[in-house]
């Protein structure tokens, strides 16, 4: 139905769309998501040929190349073959005409029916979109935002076009009217083709068959909606999802580092991408098909940083780890959850090379790790459970943090000191005077763990294995340390293997979870799924026993009783 080929739009010198390729089949709904400024609205307007700037490329609508049509023919196509629901209904409607007049206008002006017939049709449409009949003679300003949006939708339907473009159809509405409008759109989508542009991911999730992620005037990821949302493969799509508040994901919100800037040489996202490599700054990645999806990424989307394959480890006859396979993506937190004795720490130590596996292997960035030399530890670092034991009490704070650099022989002494101090600042510790000279026993538990984290991070590793990093800390300090780790992940794209027995903690920091029992991974998946609908009975029992704030006296009460809302609110939070 709609096929866009290499569409480029520029306003003066500013290039807004840099070669868009898209295809929308009849009856399909494509959602275009992305931050504001990505060029989403420009894309909508280009299809209607309403952009002020200059357009190059092709837009085929029902086989007709719109960009090559004379204005007069384009005028006839507008609203008859393609209509639009504009952003911000309030200003998209003319304030001095009644909404009925505005809905029937395109029918009359395109000479599709007589005035009387057009009016009858417009009234019917307004009724269909759920505007009460007595409101049809109202002026736009007399209607609520939701009603105005309904009018815009009725208007878009007036000439029964094949394609309807919706630009942020619900972004100006409150949650309740948003849900109503989305339901209405869902119903209309049954016999219309939609292109929905939105930054509201839940709208995209509810309406779309396919989702295209747009960044700086390019499509960076395109695929079936459910798959893109549940397993984004472009770093930008994942970042968008992490930043979007919703009731589904359980991890804390994370921002996207930096901000969109144009023009950027190479991949437009590379300054903000945490897995960017040399080529990303040089060449623009093309949108290519990859495993049922289209991706524009030199690295083939989010890379698998660490892969563990069939790893087993026994101590005598005791099988501590039984044929474990796990993947950790770049920039992802995988929580490894299980009770003590389940083999979590053994697994971690095997990965780090502190124990030799009996079977299977570890792959770092696709390469099997055979020997662990300095460059392995430059990429993989570990934070242990008890900083009091893991930090040498003979070294001062500065020496502790600098030591990995000394071992690796990086830079001059001066540079190493500087880098150690910067890292200390990054973990929110003072990087001056007395503190640098102090010894671990003079520090609090939280400070010690921060020093341990700084020590692990000073080499700028890609993966941090954190084994119960907060179990020795009180909750206030624990929360701060976890926030710190998430911030570092946002800034540096740090991947984490977060080992804990505490499910409630794991769900706040992890993207995915793997549950370990008696040396085996019995269940793994997106954290929200594992927590909300556990498959394995053991996971279920973990969820049951995880900490929640129901007090005993309230436990047996019915929902109607006071305090019920507050209680449920707390368990969600």
């Amino acid at each position, binding site marked *: 139905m709609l096929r866009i080929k290499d569409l480029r739009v520029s306003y003066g010198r500013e290039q807004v769309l840099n070669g868009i390729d898209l295809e929308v089949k009849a009856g399909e709904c494509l959602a275009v998501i992305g931050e504001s400024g990505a060029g989403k609205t420009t894309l909508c307007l280009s299809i209607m040929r309403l952009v002020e700037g200059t357009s190059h490329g092709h837009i085929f609508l029902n086989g007709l190349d719109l960009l090559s049509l004379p204005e007069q023919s384009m005028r*006839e196509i507008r609203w008859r073959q393609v209509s*639009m629901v504009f952003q911000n209904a309030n200003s998209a409607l003319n*304030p001095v005409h009644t909404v009925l007049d505005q809905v029937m206008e395109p029918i009359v*002006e395109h000479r599709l029916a007589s005035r009387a017939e057009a009016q009858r049709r417009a009234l019917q449409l307004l009724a269909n979109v759920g505007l009460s009949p007595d409101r049809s003679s109202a*002026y736009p300003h007399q209607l609520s935002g939701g009603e105005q949006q309904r009018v815009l939708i009725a208007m878009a339907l007036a000439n029964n076009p094949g394609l309807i473009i919706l630009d942020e159809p619900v972004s100006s509405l409150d949650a309740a009217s948003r849900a109503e409008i989305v339901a209405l759109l869902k119903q209309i989508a049954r016999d219309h083709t939609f292109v929905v542009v939105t930054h509201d991911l839940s709208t995209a999730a509810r309406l779309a068959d396919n989702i295209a992620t747009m960044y700086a005037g390019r499509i960076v990821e395109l695929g079936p909606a459910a798959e893109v949302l549940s397993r984004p493969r472009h770093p930008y799509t994942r970042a968008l999802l992490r930043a979007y508040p919703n009731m589904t994901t359980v991890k804390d919100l994370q921002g996207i580092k930096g901000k969109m800037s144009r023009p950027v040489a190479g991949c437009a996202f590379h300054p903000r991408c945490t897995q960017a490599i040399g080529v990303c700054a040089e060449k623009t990645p093309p949108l290519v098909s990859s495993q049922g999806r289209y991706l524009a990424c030199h690295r083939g989307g989010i890379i698998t940083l660490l892969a563990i394959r069939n790893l087993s480890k026994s101590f005598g006859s005791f099988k501590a780890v039984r044929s474990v396979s796990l993947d950790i993506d770049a920039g992802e937190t995988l929580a490894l959850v299980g009770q003590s004795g389940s083999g979590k720490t053994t697994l971690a130590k095997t990965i780090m090379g502190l124990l030799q596996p009996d079977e299977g292997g570890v792959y770092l960035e696709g390469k099997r790790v055979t020997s662990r030399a300095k460059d392995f530890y430059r990429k993989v670092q570990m934070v242990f459970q008890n900083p009091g034991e893991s930090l040498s009490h003979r070294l001062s704070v500065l020496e502790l943090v600098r030591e990995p650099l000394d071992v690796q022989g990086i830079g001059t002494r001066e540079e190493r000191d500087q880098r150690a101090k910067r890292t200390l600042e990054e973990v929110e510790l003072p990087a001056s005077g007395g503190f640098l000279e102090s010894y671990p026993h003079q520090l609090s538990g939280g400070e010690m763990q921060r020093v341990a984290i700084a020590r692990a991070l000073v080499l700028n590793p890609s993966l941090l294995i954190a084994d119960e990093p907060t179990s020795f800390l009180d909750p206030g300090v624990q929360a701060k340390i976890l926030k710190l780790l998430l911030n570092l992940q946002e800034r540096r794209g740090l991947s984490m293997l977060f080992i804990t027995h505490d499910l409630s903690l794991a769900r706040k920091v992890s993207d995915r979870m793997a549950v370990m029992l008696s040396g085996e991974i019995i269940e793994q998946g997106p954290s929200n799924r594992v927590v909300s609908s556990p498959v394995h009975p053991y996971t279920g029992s973990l969820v049951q026993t995880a900490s929640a704030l129901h007090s005993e006296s309230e436990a047996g009460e019915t929902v109607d009783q006071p305090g019920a809302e507050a209680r449920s609110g707390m368990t969600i939070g």
Partner: protein
Amino acid sequence: MFSRRNLVTYAIALLLVLAFNFLLPRMMPGDPLMAIYGEEALVQMTPELKANLVERFALDQPMWQQFGAYFGALFRGDLGYSYYYNAPAFEVILGRLPWTLLLVGLSLVLSTLLGIVLGIESGWRRGSKTDRSMLAGLMALNGFPDFFIGMVLLLVFGVTLGIFPLAGALTPYSGLSGGALLLDVLKHLALPLAALTLAHIAGAYLLTRNTMITVVKEPYMLTARAKGLSQRVMKYRHAGRNSMLPVITRTGLWLGRVVTGALFVEIVFSYPGLGYLAYEALLARDYPIIEGVLLVVALFVLVANFLADLSYPKLDPRVSYAR
């Protein structure tokens, strides 16, 4: 629609106009009768007539009773007696009023309509040659006072080309009737009307053009374009309709200027309206007429403002006087 509060505002304005008209002659130095009737009239006056007048204006009574009497007189349509025209002032004014109404009304409608249309066309193609030449031309025209334009028109079309009559509103003693009379009226009206219209077109034009320039950037204009509407519909139904709103509000206010303009233009063309009447009265020091004309003009402006206020919510549904 129209609230009580607005009506009260108009009532207060009306009272102020009346009070001013009442106080003005009485604040002049000397005999108020002289101020009301003028020196010459007083000289010719017999003592009986004088006593009669004092009683009629309650001049021997306190101020508030005088005001009551004045008000009562007004109510009866008594604006005093013109010794110059030897007729009640009210009748004299009433006789001249239609000509001014015709001139002012038509020129107001014409200048506003033309101004709006030119403004819409100009603002629609902002920056184009048409727009720039129209803007320059009308700005230049705006610089000339209306009576000057009237004089130029009179010289060119009346004196040099001889197409239009030089003075008056009708050919005297022609005994015309029906279509011929209408044509005669229009012929006499043409030049003063043109002068007044040309002088006031720029105001409406500039305001419409200005609004038009902002309106064409409004999101609803994008909607209109997306709907595949024709240029004409976009330009007039969508953009134009919104651009004329401020002009309509201003029309009431402009009326005062147009009326003043009419006073001068009437003098230039010896057009027998209120302006020419005031001029004659001024030369003859016929105070009742002058004051009467003042009062009528003030009422005129008041009524026009009131009508503009009434029509505004019909044009712009967002304006509601419901509160």
